[in-house]
C-alpha cells in the first residue's frame, strides 16, 4: 500500500472533499443508472411492475424478431456515414475561407457561427419550411432553373438526405475549432514551402490538412457519437413534415426518419418496454464504442500532432 505522509493524507482528504460533488454526481446519476440499465436490459420491465428476468431475451428479440430494428439501424448508419464526412468537409473548407485575410473577416465568421447557437428545435422548424414541397426555398430554386423539385420530407428516398443537409446549418461551431487549429500552424512552414515552389493546393494538402488532423480526428469522434444519438431534429422534422400517416408520423415517410434513439425512446415511454429499451441502449453503446475504437486505432496512421 502506498505510504502517505501526514501532509499528503491531509491534501488527499481535502482534495476528495472538494471533488466530492462530482464523485457523488458520478456515482448517483451516472454509474448507478448505467448499472441499473445493464440489469434491466436482461429483464422484462415496464417500470410499473417488478422486473422479470429474461436473460438475453431482449437482445435476441431485437436482432431476430423486431421488424423495425433493421430499419432504425440502417437509418442511423446511413445518417452517420454521410453526415459526419460531409460536415467535416464543409467545416474544413469554410475554416480555410474564413482564415483568409480579407476585409470584414470578423463579420463573416460571426455570420457562419450564429446559426450554430440557434436552438435545435427552432432550426428544425425553420428547415421544415425550407424543405416544403410547394413553397419551400429549395424547391422554388429548383423550379426556377427548370427542375421538378423533390419531396424533401415526404419522399422516403429524400427524407434522410434532407436531414443530412440540415446538419450543415450547425457547422459554425466546429469551424471555430478548425480556425483555432489553422492559427496554430507555424507560418514558417508555408514560407518554406513557398520558397521551395509549392503552390496553394500543395500547401493545403501537404501542410494544412495534415496539421489539421488532430481537429479532424476530434470532430470525427464527436460527430460519430452525435450521429448515433440523433433524435430531436428527426423528431421535429418527421412530425411536421407531413410525410406520413397519422399517428407515429414522427418517424417520417415510410419510417425513413426512424432513428435508433427515437425508436429507443418509443420503446421506453410509448410502449412501456423499459427492459427492451435498456437492451437497445447497450447495443447502441456497443456500436458507438466499436466505431470509436476503430477510429482511435486508425488515428495512429493519419493524425499528426505538430509537436510530435
Amino acid at each position, binding site marked *: 500500500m502506498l505510504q502517505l505522509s501526514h501532509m499528503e493524507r491531509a491534501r488527499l482528504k481535502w482534495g476528495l472533499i472538494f471533488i466530492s460533488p462530482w464523485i457523488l454526481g458520478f456515482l448517483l446519476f451516472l454509474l448507478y443508472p448505467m448499472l441499473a440499465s445493464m440489469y434491466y436490459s436482461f429483464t*422484462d420491465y*415496464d417500470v410499473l411492475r417488478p422486473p422479470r428476468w429474461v436473460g438475453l431475451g431482449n437482445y435476441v428479440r431485437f436482432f431476430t424478431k423486431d421488424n423495425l430494428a433493421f430499419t432504425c439501424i440502417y437509418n442511423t448508419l446511413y445518417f452517420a456515414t454521410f453526415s459526419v464526412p460531409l460536415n467535416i468537409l464543409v467545416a474544413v473548407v469554410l475554416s480555410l475561407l474564413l482564415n483568409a485575410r480579407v476585409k470584414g473577416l470578423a463579420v463573416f465568421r460571426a455570420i457562419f457561427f450564429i446559426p450554430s447557437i440557434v436552438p435545435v428545435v427552432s432550426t428544425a422548424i425553420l428547415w421544415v419550411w425550407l424543405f416544403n*414541397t410547394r413553397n419551400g426555398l429549395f424547391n422554388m430554386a429548383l423550379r426556377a432553373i427548370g427542375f421538378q423539385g423533390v419531396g424533401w420530407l415526404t419522399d422516403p428516398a429524400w427524407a434522410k438526405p434532407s436531414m443530412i443537409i440540415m446538419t450543415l446549418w450547425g457547422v459554425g461551431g466546429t469551424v471555430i475549432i478548425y480556425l483555432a487549429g489553422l492559427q496554430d500552424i507555424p507560418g514558417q512552414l508555408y514560407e518554406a514551402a513557398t520558397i521551395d515552389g509549392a503552390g496553394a493546393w500543395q500547401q493545403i494538402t501537404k501542410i494544412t490538412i495534415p496539421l489539421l488532423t488532430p481537429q479532424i480526428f476530434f470532430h470525427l469522434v464527436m460527430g460519430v457519437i452525435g450521429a448515433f444519438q440523433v433524435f430531436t431534429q428527426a423528431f421535429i422534422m418527421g412530425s411536421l*413534415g407531413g410525410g406520413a*400517416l397519422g399517428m407515429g408520423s414522427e418517424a417520417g415517410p415510410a*419510417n425513413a426518419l426512424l432513428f435508433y434513439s427515437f425508436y429507443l425512446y418509443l420503446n421506453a*415511454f410509448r*410502449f412501456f418496454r423499459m427492459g427492451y429499451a435498456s437492451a437497445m441502449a447497450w447495443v447502441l453503446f456497443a456500436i458507438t464504442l466499436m466505431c470509436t475504437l476503430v477510429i482511435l486505432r486508425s488515428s495512429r496512421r493519419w493524425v499528426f500532432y505538430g509537436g510530435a
Partner: protein
Amino acid sequence: MDLRMARNKKTRREFLRLAGLAVSSAALSACGGPTPSPVVVEQEKVVKETVEKQVTEIVQVVVTATPYPVPPVVLPVAPVVTPAPEQPIDIVYWDLYSRLVWHGQDVKQVPVDLWNQANPNIRVHYLPGAGAKEKVLTAVASGTPPDLLLTDPPTEYVYRKAVDSLQPYLEKGDHPYIEKDIYPGVWKGMAFKGEVYAIHRVPNNAGMYINADLFQQAGLDPDNPPRTLAEVEECAAKIHKVDSNGDIEILGFSPWLNIAGIWGTWAEAFGAELWDEANNRVTFDEEKSVKALEWQVEYARKFGGYEKILAFNDALAGMDPFGSGRVGIYITGPWQIGIMQDNYPAINYRTSTMPVPEGGRGGSWLGGSWMVMPRGGKNRDIAWEFMKWYCGKECQDYEGTQGIGFTIWPEVNEKNEWFNTLEQLKPFLRDLPHCWPIPLIPTVNHAFFTAFNPMVDECLRGKRTPMDAMREATRIAQEEVDRFISNL
C-alpha cells in the same frame, strides 16, 4: 387540441369577427339566455363601435361565415363535503393536456376554483401539462403519484395496473356513472372486464367539414352533404384540382389528413373490430379491415397517388388544412369549429356526420380525456369526492358547452339547448351513439405504431397487398400482446 388564442392586438378582421360573435350572442341573450359574461359585454361594446363604421362588411361576414356564438355560462355548483377535514388536505390533479381557455373561460380550472371556494380545507391543485407518460410512470413507480390524473385513453395504464379500479366507490352508489345512462361506446372505454377504471370527461368524436364555397364552385349543394363514402368520392372528384405539375391545387378529400386515418378509423368504419377481447386476439386482418384498406388503395389511385396527397399536406407547411380553404371535405373533431372561429372566420363551411361506407357502420372513435386514480395516491376517499363531482353531469355540461365537447350522458346532451341549437355541433351529437372507443388492445400504442400504421403506409406505397399488409400487422401486434399477456 389547444383552443387558446392570444388576442392582444385586434386587427380589422378581428373586430369584424368579434362583431359577428357579439351579434349572435346578443341575439341569444335577447332570447332569454343567462346574464352575459364580461366577455359578451366587452364584445357588445366592440360591435357598437364597429357597426357604425363597417356596416356593409359586417353584413358580409355574418352572411358568408358561420360564426360560433358565445355560449351561455352556467357554472356548476360545488358541493360542500361534510364533515370537512380538520386539517387542510391537498389533492394534486395532473392533466396530460394544456389549459383550455375559450371565450374567456378557463374551463378545467374554473370548477377547481369553485370547489376550493366551497371546500377551503380540501385544496385541489390543478397542474395542466403535468401528466406526460414519462412523468406518470416514474411517479407511480416511486410511490409519489398525483391523486388524480386526466389522460388520453387509459387502456395501457389499466392493463399495467398503474391506476386503481373505481369499482369500490361506484358500488357505494350516489353517483351518475351508470351503464344504461351512458353512451355504449363511452362505457366500453371506461369499463375493463366489468370494472370501471376511468371516467370519460367531455367526449368528442370526428365529423365531416364541408367547404361550402368549393362545393358551390363545383356545382354541388353544400346543404346536401355526402352521406356515404361513395358520395364523398363523387363530390371529391368534382372539387379536386391539380396544377400543370400534377400537384394538388384543391384537395377534394383525403382519407389520411389530420385525424382521418388514425387509430384504424376506416377499418372500424367499414365494420371491423380490430380486437377480440374475449380471446385476446388482434384482428387487424379481418375481412372488413382488408376491405377498408382496399378502398384506400383504390382511392389513392383515383386521385393521383398516395404520395401526391401527402405532398399536399406537406405543402400547407403546418397551416390548418381546412382553414387554408383548399380542402373540400375534411374529417376532424368539433374543436375545428373553434379553430375556424378564431383563425378563419371568412371560410363558409358546414358540418355533417361521418361518411358511412357501404355495409359499414359509420361513426368514429371517441376522443376527449379520462380521469383516473393513479396507483398509490393518498387521500383517495376525498379525491373521489372531488372526482365524482368534477366528472359529473354539471361539470361536464359546463365544460362541454364552453369548450366544444359533450357529456357522456345522452339525456344531459338532449336537454342542453346550446348543443341542439347550433348547426355546427348537431351532426357530432347525432353521431355520438354510433361511436366506439379506440381499440382496447393492452399494447395499443405498439400495435398501431409498429404494426398497423406502418403496414397501411407500406400498402399505400405499393409495397404490399392489403391482405398481406394486414396479416403482417396482425402478426407483429399479436406477438407483443402474447408477450404482455404471458407476463400478467
